[in-house]
């Protein structure tokens, strides 16, 4: 079923549709939310509140054909609101938020001796980035969202979203040169993608 139809069923009062949406997107929401707050209780409460509110307001919801960005945007707003309350920050301050993301390594391509060194390298690379840069990389390359959805979630226009990603990638690629060389030497990967060169 498409997102559009599922959303229509929800609006028509189908509790099963709510459950479907919940079970489809729970892991995504949790993973994303956990990077915006380290407080598990706040995150769990926010997810609970979000779905209760969606159900209560279902008749007033506008149509959507993309549920994921809608949910991510909503949980982001909720978490910011609760973080703001706790630390009594103003709207402006909260834009300098926290985003706790760590790059992971594909263990297939790195032997044990190199793992620790590579981990350190990746960590260093991530530390160069602002929270917003980390967030956009996470949404783009991990959650596989299109730019349009990211613009919606992060409140950016197309040009600033592109700039944010490009600058993040530029500063990352400076730091992960070594890592890329290891990766490029990896045979399985080469044969996988370059069959058509021969």
């Amino acid at each position: 079923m498409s997102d559009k139809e599922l959303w229509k069923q929800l609006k028509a009062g189908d509790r099963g549709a709510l459950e479907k949406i919940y079970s489809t997107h729970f892991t995504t929401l949790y993973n994303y939310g956990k990077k915006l707050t380290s407080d598990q209780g706040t995150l769990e409460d926010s997810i609970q509140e979000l779905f209760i509110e969606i159900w209560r307001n279902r008749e007033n919801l506008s149509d959507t054909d993309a549920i994921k960005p809608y949910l991510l945007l909503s949980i982001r707003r909720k978490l910011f609101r609760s973080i703001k309350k706790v630390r009594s920050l103003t709207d402006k301050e909260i834009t300098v938020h926290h985003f706790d993301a760590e790059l992971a390594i594909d263990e297939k391509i790195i032997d044990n001796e190199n793992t620790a060194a590579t981990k350190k390298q990746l960590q260093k690379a991530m530390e160069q980035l602002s929270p917003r840069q980390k967030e956009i990389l996470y949404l783009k390359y991990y959650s596989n969202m299109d730019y349009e959805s990211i613009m919606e979630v992060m409140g950016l226009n197309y040009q600033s979203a592109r700039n944010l990603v490009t600058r993040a990638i530029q500063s990352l690629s400076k730091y992960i040169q070594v890592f890329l060389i290891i990766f490029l030497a990896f045979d399985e990967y080469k044969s996988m993608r370059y069959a058509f060169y021969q």
Partner: protein
Amino acid sequence: MEKYLQYTAEEFATDESFINWVKKLDKNHSVFWDNWLRENPNKKPLIDKAIAIVQNLRFRSETIPTGTQKNIWQAIEKELDQTEVTNKARPLFRRSFALGFAASLLGAFIYFGFFGKGMIEVQTSYADLQSISLPDNSSIEINADSRISYDKKEWKNNREVHLEGEGFFEVEKGSSFVVKTDLGQVEVLGTSFNVMSRNNQLTVHCETGRVLVKYQGQETILNPNQNVSIVNGRKQDANEDNNLVDRGSWRKGLYKYDNVSLSDVIRDVERHWGVQVELPANIADEKFKGSYKSENLEKALAEIFWPFGLKYSIQDKNITITQ
């Protein structure tokens, strides 16, 4: 497209169409990029680098505590059911969970009290194994620190069991029998098999018959002595006929491991004997291959630790490791 001729590796790596091609998200882009590369072979080094960037931006995924998804959903449902009758102030999940925890300490299952009338639930604590019969004479042996529930009233129409933790199932022939866990579900007709669902890991071992494991739209069929694990969202291939992978042997008093991290092995020990082990962080990820019997704690500890040259001491329920 003209613009791509001027692109740097970083610009490729941030281009939506390019990313979709690398990640195989959209078939429409693949023809375009395959052709483009054939026409511009001199761009290969740039493209290699851009692909490497895109493929390597992986993020660590969070470990979601067992039961979280279910607990929050139950709290949502409870709240929605209540408000459809009255308009009370709503208790949040955390509060109801704390209440439930306090209640379970008192030996009452208030937190689970909102199960329907036909719901049967069995929960085991540490150092506690239980065996139960289901209405059709199928049986479950439940390992320590686990919980199962099923609907007795609906059993005839719907053989479905929810599991958190670990259980060994012997299923009478009949209609489809389903074990649901947070991570995925296991479907059988009549067979025996072990399911473990803990710490974002689902492991299913088939002892007799055939078992179907469903996980995020993927299906794996297991024949006798085969098993499959899904660890942190990644499927690890089904091993065949490896004597050590028979996870279900715990119920015969034997725990077996084939390259399992020491911290996971120790968690089994803690559950089985209700002890606490202080495992030094630097050895937590060491891999253990072997087995131990669950009748004697000291012998088991000796089996586990001698390959690593580690010594241990037991004081009451606390075990300390020295290197």
